[in-house]
C-alpha cells in the first residue's frame, strides 16, 4: 500500500478527532451552504469564513500546507473558469479597503470571489476528512439516514480501492517493461484494453470470493462493527458554536460592514 497519504491524518488524535463524525459532517455541510450563499462579488465579506477551517486544521494538528496542496492539485478547472470571467463581465466597480481605493471590473471580483470560496470550501472538507476516520464517517452518515445499501457499498469501495489500485499499478508496470511505449498505436490500445479487461475479470472473481467468504462468516445483509458513535455534550457544544459562528458570518458581520 503506497496510497495512505490521502487520509493519513485521519488516524490521529486531537480534540477535533474526538468529535462525533455527525457533528463535523453537519457543521461542514452548513459551512458550505453558507459559503455559496454569499453573492458573486463578495470578497472582503468572506474574511471571517476563514476562521472555521483553519481552526479545525490547527486544533486537529493537520498541517495547513496539506490542505493547500489539495487546493493546488484540484484548481486547474476552476482557475480556467475564473480567468474566463473577466473577459465577459466588464462592469466597472470601485473596491475600497481602508484608505485604499481602486477601480476593478466585476469579472475580476467574481474571479477572486470564486477562487476564495473554492479554497475555503476545499480546506473545510479536507479539515473534516483529515480529522475523521472514514469508517466513523460512514457510520455517522448511516445514522443520519443514508440508505444502508449505499453505506455498505462505500465501505467496500474504500476497503478495496487501494488493493485494486496496487494491482493496476503492477499490471501497468509489467506492460511498460514489455516495451509498450514503442508499440504502434493499435497494439498499444489493445494492451490497454487487455489490462483493463483482465482487471475487470479479476474484480468480478474477487467480489464473488468476498461474497462467499462473508456468507461463510454469517453475513446476512446486516453489517456489524465494533466502533460505536456517541454524541456527547462536547459535540452538541461544537455544533452550537458552529451554528452561531455561521450566523455571525452570514447575517451579523455584513451588517456591521
Amino acid at each position, binding site marked *: 500500500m503506497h496510497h495512505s497519504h490521502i487520509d493519513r491524518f485521519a488516524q490521529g488524535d486531537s480534540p477535533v478527532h474526538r468529535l462525533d463524525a455527525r457533528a463535523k459532517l453537519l457543521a461542514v455541510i452548513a459551512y*458550505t451552504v453558507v*459559503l455559496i*450563499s454569499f*453573492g*458573486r*462579488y*463578495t*470578497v*472582503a*465579506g468572506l*474574511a471571517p469564513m476563514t*476562521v472555521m477551517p*483553519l*481552526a479545525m486544521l490547527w486544533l486537529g*494538528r493537520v498541517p495547513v500546507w496539506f490542505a493547500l496542496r489539495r487546493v493546488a492539485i*484540484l484548481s486547474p*478547472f476552476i482557475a480556467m473558469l475564473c480567468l474566463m*470571467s473577466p473577459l*465577459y*463581465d*466588464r462592469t466597472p466597480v*470601485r473596491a475600497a479597503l*481602508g484608505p485604499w481605493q481602486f477601480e476593478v471590473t466585476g469579472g475580476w471580483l467574481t474571479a477572486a470571489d*470564486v477562487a476564495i*470560496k*473554492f479554497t475555503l470550501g*476545499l480546506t473545510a*472538507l*479536507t479539515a473534516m*476528512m483529515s480529522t475523521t476516520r*472514514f469508517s466513523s464517517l460512514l457510520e455517522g452518515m448511516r445514522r443520519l439516514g443514508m440508505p444502508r*445499501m*449505499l453505506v455498505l*457499498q*462505500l465501505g*467496500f*469501495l*474504500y476497503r478495496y*480501492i487501494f488493493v*485494486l*489500485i496496487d*494491482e493496476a*499499478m503492477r*499490471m501497468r508496470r509489467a506492460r511498460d517493461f514489455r516495451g509498450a511505449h514503442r508499440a504502434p498505436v*493499435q497494439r498499444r*490500445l489493445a494492451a*490497454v*484494453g487487455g489490462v*483493463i*479487461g483482465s*482487471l*475487470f*475479470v479479476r*474484480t468480478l472473481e*474477487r*467480489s464473488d470470493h468476498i*461474497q462467499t467468504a462473508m456468507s461463510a462468516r454469517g453475513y446476512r445483509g446486516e453489517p456489524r462493527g465494533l466502533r460505536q458513535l456517541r454524541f456527547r455534550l462536547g459535540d452538541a457544544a461544537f455544533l452550537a458554536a458552529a451554528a452561531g459562528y455561521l450566523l455571525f458570518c452570514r447575517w451579523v458581520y*455584513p451588517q*456591521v*460592514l
Partner: protein
Amino acid sequence: MIVLPFAMHMANELLSVPVAGATLALAAGAVALAGVRARSTLDAEKLPLMGVMGAFVFAAQMINFALPGMPGTSGHLGGGVLLAILLGPSGAIVCMTAILIVQCLLFQDGGLLALGCNVLNMGVVPALAGWSAYRGILGRSAAPKPWRQYIAAWAAATVGVTAGAGLVPIQAVLSGVLRIPVADFLAVMVGVHLLIAFIEGAITFAVLAYLRRTRPATLGLPVADGRERLSRKAVLASLLLTATLLAGVISWFASARPDGLEWSYKHRAYGASKESVQNPSPTVRGVDAWQVRYALLPDYSRRAAALGQEPPQEPAHGDGAPEGRNQPEAEAYPNVNAWGSLAGLLGTAATLGLVYLLATLIRRRKTPDASS
C-alpha cells in the same frame, strides 16, 4: 507527462443554493430508482459488492494510454460508460454514485453540495445516454458482429461523456455565479469533452474487444468462434467520425453564436455589455422581467447598483431579497464600508491568531504526555 483529466467535476462555488438543492433532490430520486431496479436484477446480498466494482473503476483510471500524435500526453478511462455496458444502467448508476461520493470526500474532487450535479452529469446521464446508444446500435441480435459492437461502444462513450459535460454550463448558468454566456461555455465544454470522449471510446472498445475474445459471457454473448482482433479499420472509422463531429459542433456554435440560440436570452440577462441589444420577442422580455423580479440570487440588485454607481431604485429589487443589502460590501459605498471591511480583516486575523495560540498550547501540553 500530461494526463488529460476528466474535467467534469462541478465545484460548489459555481452553484447557487437553489440549483444545488434541486440537483441533489433530482439525483437522490434517480439513484433511489436505480437502486430499486438494480435490486430486482441482482440479489440483495450482492448489491453492496458494487462497491468493489467502484474500486475497479478507480484502478482502471490508473492505466494510462499514451496518445498518438501528441507525445508526452496520455489519457485514461473515465469508466461510467464502460460500467453501463458491463453492468446495465441501473447498476452503473448505483456504482458511479458511490465512486463520486468517495471522490468528493476522500479526494475532494467535486464539492459536497455539487454532488447532485456530479451524480447527474457523470453517473445518471452518461449511463442512460450511453447505454441507450449502445443498445440502439447493437440491435436485438443475440450475437452481434464485432464492428457493430465497437461502433456501439464508441458511440456510447461519445454520447454519454458529451451529454454529461454539456450539463455543466447549463447548471452553472442557471446558478448565475459566472457571467460567461452559456453558448461560449457550452462550446468549450463540449469541444474539450469530444476529445476526452474519443479516448474514452477508444479504450472502451479495446476493453470490449478483449472481453469478447476471452470472456464473452460478461458481455452476454455466446462463446466466441475463432479469434477476433481489434480491427484497424474500426479505429480509423471512429477517429474520422469524431473529427467530423468535432468540426460540426464547433462550426454550429460558431454560426449560432451571433444571432443566438434559444437559451442565449439567459446571458442577455447577465451580460451587462449586451444590454443595448434589444430582443424584440415579448416572450424573451417576459422571461427577463420574471428573472429579475423573482431571482433567488440578490445579485441583480447588486448589478444595478454597480452599473449606475447609485443605489437600486426599484423596490422590487431591494425588498425582494433581504441579503441584497449585504452584497455591496466594499465597492458600491466606499465611504461607509471601507473602514468596516478593514476592521473585519483585522478582527479575523486577531481571531485566527488566538485560535493558533490555543492550538499550540494544546499541542505543547500534549507532547510530553505522548513521549513519556
